[in-house]
C-alpha cells in the first residue's frame, strides 16, 4: 500500500466516524452538563489551595484555573477511558474478519478514532472553553502558541488512542481486558495530570512520570497552553517521539495478536 493510499484510507475512516458522531444528541448535552460540574469542582478546589500563597509548584492561581479548564475541556478529545471495540471483536470472533481486510489495521483504527476526537473538539472542548472563559477561569495563551497547542493536542490524542488500543489488544492473551483497563486508568488519571498538574508532584514522581506515556496525553498540551517551563517546542518534540514509539509498539503487539489468532483460531 502506498503512503498516500494509507492517508486517504485513514481519512475515509475519520470522515465516517465523524458523521456518525455529528448527530448532536441529548446524551451530548447531558455529558457537557456533567463536564461543566467537574470543571467547577476542580477549579474551586485547587483555587482554595492558594488562600495563603501565590505559587504552588511554579504555577500561580490564574495558571491553575486555566490548567483545570483546558484539561477538562480536552478530556474527551484525549480520552483515558473508553471502549474502542477491539476487545469485543476478539471475544466475538469478528476479529478474524477484520484481520482478513487488506487495509492497515492501526491506520484505520487511528483514522476512526481521530473522527471521534474531532467531534468532541467541537461538541465538548469548545463549549467548555467558553464556559470556563465566562466563569473567569481561562487565560488565553499568546496567539503564536495556539498552532503549537493544536499540534500538541493532535499528538496527545494520537498517543491516548494508542494507549486505549494497547489495553484492548491485551485481550488477545488475557481473555478479559477489564483489569488492565482499570489499572491503566488509575495510572493515567494521576500521571496525565488530570487530578493535579504534574508540576505539583514531588521530584521523584515527576521523574517517574517522564518514563510513562501518560504525561504526553492531557498534560502536554495543557502545559503548552499555560506556558510550559521546558519550552513549548521541546514538549511537542518529546510527544512526537512517544507517538512514533507507541505506534511501532501497537503494530508489533497487533502482529503478535494476529499470530495468536492464526495459531489458535479466532
Amino acid at each position, binding site marked *: 500500500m502506498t503512503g498516500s493510499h494509507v492517508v486517504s484510507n485513514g481519512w475515509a475512516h475519520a470522515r465516517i466516524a465523524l458523521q456518525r458522531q455529528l448527530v448532536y444528541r441529548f446524551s451530548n448535552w447531558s455529558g457537557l452538563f456533567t463536564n461543566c460540574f467537574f470543571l467547577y469542582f476542580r477549579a474551586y478546589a485547587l483555587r482554595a489551595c492558594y488562600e495563603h500563597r501565590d505559587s504552588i509548584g511554579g504555577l500561580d492561581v490564574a495558571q491553575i484555573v486555566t490548567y483545570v479548564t483546558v484539561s477538562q475541556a480536552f478530556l474527551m478529545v484525549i480520552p483515558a477511558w473508553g471502549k474502542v471495540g477491539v476487545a469485543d471483536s476478539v471475544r466475538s470472533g469478528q476479529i478474524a474478519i477484520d484481520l482478513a481486510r487488506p487495509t492497515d489495521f492501526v491506520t484505520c483504527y487511528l483514522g476512526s478514532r481521530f473522527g471521534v476526537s474531532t467531534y468532541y473538539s467541537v461538541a465538548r472542548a469548545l463549549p467548555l472553553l467558553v464556559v470556563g472563559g465566562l466563569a473567569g477561569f481561562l487565560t488565553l495563551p499568546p496567539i503564536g502558541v495556539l498552532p503549537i497547542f493544536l499540534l500538541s493536542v493532535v499528538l496527545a490524542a494520537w498517543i491516548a488512542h494508542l494507549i486505549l488500543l494497547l489495553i484492548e489488544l491485551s485481550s488477545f492473551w488475557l481473555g478479559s481486558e477489564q483489569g488492565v483497563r482499570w489499572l491503566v486508568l488509575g*495510572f493515567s*488519571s494521576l500521571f496525565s495530570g488530570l487530578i493535579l498538574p504534574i508540576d*505539583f508532584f514531588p521530584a521523584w514522581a515527576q521523574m517517574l512520570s517522564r518514563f510513562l506515556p501518560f504525561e504526553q496525553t492531557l498534560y502536554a498540551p495543557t502545559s503548552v497552553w499555560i506556558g510550559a517551563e521546558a519550552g513549548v517546542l521541546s514538549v511537542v518534540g518529546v510527544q512526537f517521539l512517544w507517538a512514533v514509539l507507541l505506534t511501532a509498539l501497537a503494530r508489533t503487539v497487533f502482529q503478535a495478536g494476529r499470530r495468536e489468532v492464526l495459531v489458535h483460531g479466532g
Partner: protein
Amino acid sequence: MGADLRVWMRMYGSMVAASVREQMSYRGSFAFELLGRLTVTGLELVGLLFLFEHVDAIAGWTKWEVIYLYGMASICLGLGEALTTGFDAMPELIRSGSFDYVLVRPLPALLFVLGREVKLRILGRSLQGALAVGLCLSHLMLLWDVGSVLLLVSSVICGVAVYAGLFLASAAQCFWTVESTEMFNAFTYGGAQMTEYPVSLYPDWLRSIFLYVVPVGFVSYVPAVSLLGKSDPLGLTPWGVWVTPVVAGAFLAVCLFFWRLGVRRYEGAGG
C-alpha cells in the same frame, strides 16, 4: 406487610447470593479487576497527598481531615454503586420489553431488578475508602465514644442512601427515555469528587444545589464537621446533624417516588 417484606428480602438475598457465586467462578479476572479498581482510587489518594506537600490546609481543613472526607465519599459512592449494579440492565430490559417479565415476579420490581446482579468488584472503591477513613481516624486520635461511632455509622448509611437514590433516579429515567445520559454522573461521581473537599469552598449557587437539591454535600459535610469538631462557616451544625437522616431519607423517598411514577407509566402504556 412485615411478613411480605421478610419473604422479599429472602428472595432478594438468594438472588444476590447467586450473582456472587457466578462472579466467584471467574476468580482470576475478578481479582484482577478488583486490583485495577483499587489502583484508581489508590492513586487518587496519592494525588491528595502530593497536594498536601504544598499546603497545610484547604479551606481550614488539614490533610487528614480532607482524607477523611475523601474516604467517606469513596465508601458511600462505592456501596451505593455496588448495591445498584442491577440497574445497569434497565435500558436493555426496557428496550427489549423483558421488563414485562420483571413485573410478573412474586416480588417487587425494584428488588427483582436490583437482585439480578450485584457486582462485588465495585466494592474496591469502598474498601479503599474504608482504609483511608480508618487511617485518618487513628491518626487524628479522636475521642471515641458511643456518640461518635453512631454518628460515623449513620453518616455512612445516609451517604449510601443518597447515592443509591441517585442511581435509582437514573434507572427510573429509562421509563421515559432509554438514551444513555451522563447527566446523573454530575451528581454521583461528580458529587463524590466535590465532597472530597469541604463544601464550604464552593460558590454559593453550586453549594446550594448539593446541599438542598441533591443532598450529597449535606450528608458528607454536616456529619464530618460534627465528628471532626470543625468550625462551620455555613452554620449548618449542630442542628444539621439531627436532620441529616431526614434529609437522606426524604431524598431517597423522592427517588423511589420517581421510580414508582415510571413503573406506573409503564403499566399504563402499551408495549
